[in-house]
């Protein structure tokens, strides 16, 4: 399968600007991140033949930092899950240094874990999503994957920051990535959620314990904590994400862009047929779940949002006495077990999706084995992104030293 759906060929663009933090770094983006003139179909027939009319907010910011855009990878439909995604593969094949990926359930982190590299999801609301074609607005964000955590910091420094064109961005302080190199990580305490452990096989647990040693040698104390409603994180995520997906996929009407089914006799048939053909089975099943919450059981959506508030607060309470929560990034699975249904997709991201629900920053740190998963997944307080990345760099350094 082709790695790229579009490659930058203009030699001037390929060289990037010299003497800047990201000079010489090649960034691969997904085709749901608007780059003027590049195909931008978000992996879906719903945007068939779509070409971006303008740049997403992050594009000029990356370019100003010296990075150059290598091209568009392949992605899963509308960024839901990882099936057919080649973004991180471009790093493995040395075609790019940094990957930007939509992270809705943990896609960037899990892809990074499988490739044995670093993967980062920032706090929700610190990077403008203007120009990002998404599915689940209250949870998704740009994720960054790279072998070197310094590159992740460099990208975050470049792309984070206020933007008037993203109306969903909250006010208030943002993490300061420029000071990150100097951040003292101090002694840290990390918690392991007991309820999470019950999701792991013995083998997963063994690999996880091995990886935890990294933290120990970086001076991080690990304690066991309890989060009785841990299981609800997944359910709340699913209910809210499905409802938001159904709502935000409403714009794919086959009128202004995307696939139009031929021969419809009237307006309703045009919508039914076009949208019926526009979405693949996985996304369609997810949209039907969302339609169920939107139109048949809206109370469940509201209730999921009530539960969300409680879960966010539980998380804050836990982290009032801890600096981090730690878990594996992804369980070991059979290599080719591609999830074909929504349930399977959620199973795959069960350890990473809590951070999307609660809007916290999370970092995948490669462990042993590098690849095939487990990894180490660190979740910090909201807006504590910079300290989390600093710890990531220390762990990378100690790994390098080993």
């Amino acid at each position, binding site marked *: 399968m082709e790695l790229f759906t579009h490659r930058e060929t203009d030699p001037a663009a390929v060289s990037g600007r010299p003497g800047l933090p990201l000079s010489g770094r090649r960034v691969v983006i997904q085709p749901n991140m608007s780059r003027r003139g590049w195909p931008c179909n978000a992996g879906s027939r719903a945007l068939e033949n779509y070409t971006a009319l303008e740049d997403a907010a992050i594009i000029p910011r990356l370019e100003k930092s010296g990075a150059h855009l290598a091209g568009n990878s392949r992605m899963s439909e509308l960024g839901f899950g990882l099936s057919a995604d080649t973004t991180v593969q471009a790093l493995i094949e040395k075609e790019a240094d940094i990957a930007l990926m939509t992270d809705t359930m943990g896609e960037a982190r899990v892809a990074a874990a499988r490739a044995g590299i670093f993967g980062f999801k920032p706090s929700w609301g610190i990077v403008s999503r203007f120009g990002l074609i998404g599915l689940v607005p209250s949870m998704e964000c740009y994720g960054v994957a790279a072998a070197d955590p310094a590159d992740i910091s460099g990208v975050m420094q470049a792309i984070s920051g206020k933007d008037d064109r993203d109306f969903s961005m909250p006010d208030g302080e943002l993490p300061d990535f420029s000071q990150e190199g100097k951040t003292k990580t101090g002694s840290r305490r990390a918690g392991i959620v007991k309820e999470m452990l019950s999701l792991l096989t013995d083998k997963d647990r063994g690999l996880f314990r091995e990886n935890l040693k990294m933290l120990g040698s970086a001076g991080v104390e690990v304690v066991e904590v309890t989060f009785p409603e841990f299981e609800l994180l997944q359910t709340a995520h699913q209910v809210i994400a499905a409802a938001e997906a159904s709502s935000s996929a409403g714009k794919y009407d086959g009128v202004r862009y995307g696939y139009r089914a031929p021969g419809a006799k009237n307006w309703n048939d045009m919508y*039914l047929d076009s949208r019926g053909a526009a979405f693949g089975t996985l996304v369609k099943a997810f949209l039907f779940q969302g*339609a169920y919450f939107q139109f048949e059981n809206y109370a469940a959506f509201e209730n999921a949002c009530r539960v969300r508030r409680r879960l966010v607060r539980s998380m804050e309470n836990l982290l009032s006495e801890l600096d981090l929560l730690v878990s594996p990034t992804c369980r070991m699975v059979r290599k080719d077990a591609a999830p074909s249904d929504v349930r399977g997709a959620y199973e795959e991201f069960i350890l990473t999706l809590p951070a999307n629900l609660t809007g916290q920053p999370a970092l995948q740190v490669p462990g042993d084995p590098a690849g095939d998963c487990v990894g180490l997944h660190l979740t910090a307080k909201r807006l504590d992104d910079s300290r989390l990345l600093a710890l990531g760099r220390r762990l990378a350094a100690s790994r390098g030293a080993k």
Partner: protein
Amino acid sequence: MTFKDRSFCGTLGEPDEGRRVFLAGWVDALRDHGEVIFIHLRDRSGIVQVVFSPETADQEVCRKAGLLRSEFCVRVSGSLVRRAQGTENPGIPTGNVEVMAADLDILGRAGALPFQISEKSMVAGLAGNREESVAEDLRLQYRYLDLRRPTMQEHLINRHRIVKAVRDYLDEQGFIEVETPILTKSTPEGARDYLVPSRHYPKNFYALPQSPQLFKQLLMVAGLERYFQIARCFRDEDLRPNRQPEFTQLDLEASFIDEEFIYRLFEELTARIFSVGGVDLPRPFPRMTWLDAMNSTGSDRPDLRFSMFFRDATGIFSETRYGIFRQILDRGGCIKGINVKGQSARLSKNVLQNEYAKEIVPGFGAKGMTWMRAVNGGLESNIVQFFSKREQDEIVRLYEAEEGDVILIIADPSWKLVCSALGQLRLHVAGRLGLIPGNIFSPLWVTDFPLFEPVEGGVTSSHHPFTMPDRTDFDPGDIEELLSLRSRAYDLVVNGEELGGGSIRINDTALQNRIFKALGLSENEVEEKFGFFLRALEFGAPPHGGIALGIDRVVSMILGTSSIREVIAFPKNRSAFCPLTRAPSTVSAGQLAELELLDLGGAALLPGTKEQEDFLDSLSWVSRIRINGGERAAISEAVEAAKSCAAKINAAAGEEEPMFSVAPASNRTRPGNEARESRFAKEQDIFRNAPEVKGGFFKTASILE
């Protein structure tokens, strides 16, 4: 003060001059002239002016009068006087008199009104001062205030009179009113049922009646002979602007009768109720078979207020060399047209060709339209050169074309399509050119409907499966023969609207069973759905028939209101929602638990069952995503999983405010206050990604087929 000697505002007049009157009602409007205060006092009967003046009322009464505001509920006594010359108000029937108040009680104060209620100006010469643009949902939310308006009261009073006229007449004719159940079993009208869960039989449901059809037939079996009911019916249909989820119908059935009885009875009844609204219906009502209606107007509910009837031109073109017609006729098609008399000047070539032929008629489903104008004794058109002289002459003769006439022709291999498209065109042209006279009522009986309609792989009843066919010797397996059967059904149509319909029913079990067989129902299905009814037919069922009339619709037509909601006291809005009570609404988990509905279908999959299929189809419809072959099982499973998630979340919900975003944004506005056009719109870049564009617009399929 008591209410004992109360007079009614609207009934007062000069004969009452000098009388002391006791009144009660609402302050419709008021004018404060400092010392003297005038109010319009309104009760159901009308309005009278009341004057509070220091000359006739003591200080305390005048002080209280100063507190009055619109819609205060008050009691007033005073003496009735003739108004001073030049101060009469011809805008109200009591405008020559007024009441000089002596006493005043404020019975109820009113807060700020959501909209104005008063419809009558206090000053002569001014029209009613009500603003017309009150949003309907606001009116419905405060319906009790909206109903204070004399117009609305008039509607309800007239509705009462109409219904009473129905009851009186049917009583005279020996009909008795019998109530049938509201909690009942699903009936076969074909719309969705409203369901009511049963607590005693968990996970079992009553259905609200879509009509009392089976019960009224059972009443005939029971020997009631002549029954009627002003019945409430419920249908969970798709939303339409002039449709209510519940509606009232006059339901009627009689034994030992035939069609003529129904026609006679119902013409008299219809004439009586229209006369309540001052409308004299021409009688006897004309009758038209369904086939004639289709052939001459393209509709099974023809609007006969204007003619412009179809004429069939198929024969004229049997030898034609005009390729398009040739091909259509070779495929067994037909050619029909209408003559729009004398409208040539208003139907320009541009309108005919670019609007009608290219846009409007294709919207009606036809591929095209042929137009010709009668000019200088011949025909003029963009295609007339393809017609032979003989064909042109015969067209002129067939359509009796005269100078200034426009002939519109539609040809298609499908007779049905020609009728339907030309029928819509007939209405469109007549509406556009104002050829439909107002204020006249054209009733009509449409008869001899097809008994069945074709559906994929079989037939379905056009009316309902209890309708008597015109002959009974048919083979229930022969679809072609079934489609040729006519029913003994009749519709009452007025001005192109179906007001009612009915039929002579089947009273023979064997025949009824053959109809079910023709419909492809298995014996089990028949037994499950209609077993109780078939059993009743086995006990000496008399020949019988009946009819039903939509009361809301007929009252609305008689009173000339803009929608049926104007003649219903507490209607739902266009979205089937009641803004007053906010129904439908969620119910507590406790109520659902009691009904054992909390986890309905939650854990247990229901794939393949009809209910689940319908549910998926309704989700498919509301989300406008077609389920394609092979996806159904996966989607069904996903929706079941969503139900489980919902059950789990609902059980854990708690009482906190929902969190829709972990870090909510504050409200923002774009800088500047001028509307700006997006540069992509200005430079038309937005069309670059569009699948279909036409002349600076996104092109879509038409809204209607």
